[in-house]
């Protein structure tokens, strides 16, 4: 083969497609959109549990709230002159919608979902500049807004499908016409809230808790048979999703661990010294919104601290406030308030917990 023939086979680049850019020239295949879709995936177990325990209407609430949130985001972008498709395609509005729906009572009317969607997307997120700029968790802004504005609707708890009963007929029943033998018309925390007294040292006080805080009931709470919001009932399903989030490196494990740990320690101490004030720590962990809050709400990337140290401070703060509200506050539940309160402190926490660079030397003088 001659030299010429050899050369004629070689295809050389012309440079017509060359792009100039700064290093690095590779990029992780992950994107904001993928992250949001993975979060949605991690919420699926709890969503399925919600539908199983509260029936088809729970699914309607979740789907409709997601659509409302995406719609609210699209409308805002339209009005604000932002690219509509580019914004809703990142999936963040859908995540907010699903999280909000999972924090609503199973029997909530759909018009409440609509108000919630606008509270979440407009007041919670877009007014601050959209994704990444909101100081508060948008879903929680909406939930707390609704709780304050519509307390009756937001605390009406249908009875969950029971493992004991073969007849799941009364799925969407309201507090007034529920069987007496299950914890109806209230969440376990609600039950406890009505009996707690400040620093009651008597053993008798503890007896009040026994109906809701015993092994059989704790098992039910773990599996999900308890009154509450659509997504917060099944601890098992939330744990599956939470572990998925940690495995996919979407959340900092320190947040759920420190949050739940703090609640366990505080309620454990109080339970030990004043059994009339608090049920067992396990009761606190398995009931209310602690699990969904610790795994899905407090871990929201945008509204939690950026460093791991900051995450620990933030999570412990959430745990303290949640415990205090649950034990001594007027509301039976404190997860939403505690996370929102700590959200407000995130810029400060970020400043306090700023890390020193590698090889940092304190300057003299």
């Amino acid at each position: 083969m001659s030299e010429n023939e050899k050369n004629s086979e070689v295809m050389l680049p012309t440079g017509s497609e060359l792009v100039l850019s700064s290093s690095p020239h590779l990029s992780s295949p992950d994107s904001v959109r993928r992250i949001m879709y993975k979060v949605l995936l991690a919420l699926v177990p709890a969503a399925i549990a919600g539908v199983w325990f509260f029936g088809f209407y729970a699914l309607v609430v979740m789907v409709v709230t997601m659509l409302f949130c995406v719609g609210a985001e699209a409308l805002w972008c339209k009005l604000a002159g932002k690219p509509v498709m580019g914004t809703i395609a990142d999936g963040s509005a859908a995540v907010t919608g699903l999280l909000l729906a999972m924090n609503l009572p199973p029997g909530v009317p759909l018009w409440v979902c609509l108000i919630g969607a606008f509270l979440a997307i407009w007041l919670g997120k877009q007014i601050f500049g959209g994704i990444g700029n909101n100081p508060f968790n948008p879903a929680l802004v909406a939930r707390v807004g609704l709780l304050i504005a519509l307390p009756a609707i937001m605390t009406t708890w249908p009875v969950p499908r029971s493992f004991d009963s073969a007849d799941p007929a009364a799925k969407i029943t309201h507090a007034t016409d529920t069987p007496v033998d299950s914890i109806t018309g209230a969440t376990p925390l609600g039950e406890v809230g009505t009996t707690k007294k400040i620093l009651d040292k008597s053993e008798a006080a503890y007896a009040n808790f026994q109906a809701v805080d015993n092994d059989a009931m704790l098992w039910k709470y773990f599996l999900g048979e308890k009154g509450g919001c659509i997504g917060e009932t099944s601890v098992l399903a939330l744990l599956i999703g939470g572990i998925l989030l940690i495995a996919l490196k979407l959340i900092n494990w320190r947040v759920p661990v420190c949050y739940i740990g703090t609640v366990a320690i505080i309620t454990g101490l109080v339970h030990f010294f004043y059994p009339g004030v608090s049920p067992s720590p396990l009761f606190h962990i398995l009931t209310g919104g602690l699990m969904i809050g610790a795994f899905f709400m407090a871990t929201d990337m945008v509204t939690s601290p950026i460093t791991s140290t900051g995450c620990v401070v933030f999570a412990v703060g959430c745990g303290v406030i949640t415990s205090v509200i649950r034990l001594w506050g007027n509301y039976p539940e404190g997860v939403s308030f505690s996370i929102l309160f700590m959200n407000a402190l995130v810029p400060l926490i970020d400043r306090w917990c700023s890390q020193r660079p590698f090889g940092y030397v304190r300057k003299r003088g």
Partner: protein
Amino acid sequence: MSKKDILTFDGGIHPVSDGKALSCNAPITAAPLLDKYRVLLSENVGKLPKPVVKAGDLVKKYQLIAEADGFVSANLHSPTSGKVTGIVDVPGPMGTLIPAIEIEADGQDEPCEPMPAIDWHKADVKELLKRTADAGLVGMGGAAFPTHVKLSPPPDKTIDTLILNGAECEPYLTADHRLMLEQPERVLEGAAISAKILNVKNVYIGVEANKIDAIEALGRRAAEFGIKVATLKVQYPQGSEKQLIMAITGRKVPTGGLPMDAGCVVQNVGTAAAMTDAVCRGIPLVERVTTITGEVVKNPGNWLLKIGTPVIKAIEFAGGVTAEPGKLILGGPMMGFAQKSFEVPVAKNTSGILLLPVELSMNYGSTGCIRCGRCVEGCPMNLIPCLLGNAVEAERFDLAAQNHVMDCLECGSCAYVCPAHRPLVQHMRRAKAEIRKRKK
């Protein structure tokens, strides 16, 4: 090997596909002789050397063609025999036109009288240092810092450790891998010579665990040169000096400092091999192993290229391309420089010629920070890149300085992992430039 024996630093990233499989099994191949070479004058950090030849001069291979101008500068030698046609402006790796000595090869590749070989065991340090300078050695890992300067630390610094950098943490590059695998004794002997110059007893060679064959090849001969082979975790940027020193010795280079502030000197394995040639054979640095690779290169491989080889010719050696590339990068994909011209000549620090396909060369549009913290986790310098990026976007360079932007290595770990595809490295560079400008 147990996990405990694998050393590493805190932070860093692991690129999803490292592209090394394309070329890691291709043995080093000598490139055919070309008819023209353009040797860049700016082969080193510091002052440009002064040309000592003019148009029309006949030169032999290894003949001095430009002389170091001052201490921080390096000699240049002719890569082949032929005629100097002049000093011409060619596209340089940084995108500007820079002067180069153009040599028309006569096809003989005839060497000049070599410098005498030195028995380094008996030679004194001054003689070895002089040879290092005479042979025009510079750091071949990328920075091109003159080696004789690196090996003469100021007397107030105590150096007790020499680390050979064989981490090759950049994706796609395999030149150092092949060099260590095929010529371990050349690398090890150069390390021993450098250790003698520095008068240090602790000599390590750090290699990432994805080059097990090279680790074994080095391990078989390392003891006779008094060198310890350290296996490093496959983690980018393991080959960054500060991170390498941390991984191997546990010492931290103080912020703003140099390796010598931690008692260490770090040298690239290619430089060590060139040191062996210079001392034991009297051959100056005129060629190097370069990885020519990328998904669109027909036969990705590792080539022994003469300095001054135009990149387009190097690509021709590798069989050309299978599709039009979207990016031409000198060096690796994490810290290398994108080029706009295929006429850029290969220099002493060209570790790789990388052609990325068009699909991988898109400029991602960036979106807002979602504070996911991946950049914080990935930053080997323990900075908070997202907040620094925000400061730069708000033109708050004072805030960026307060938050230690000057410590940034520009390794690109933050920008690689950012799901919002923010151009964080550009932000850091901009902040550094602004801060330097304001200090003046």
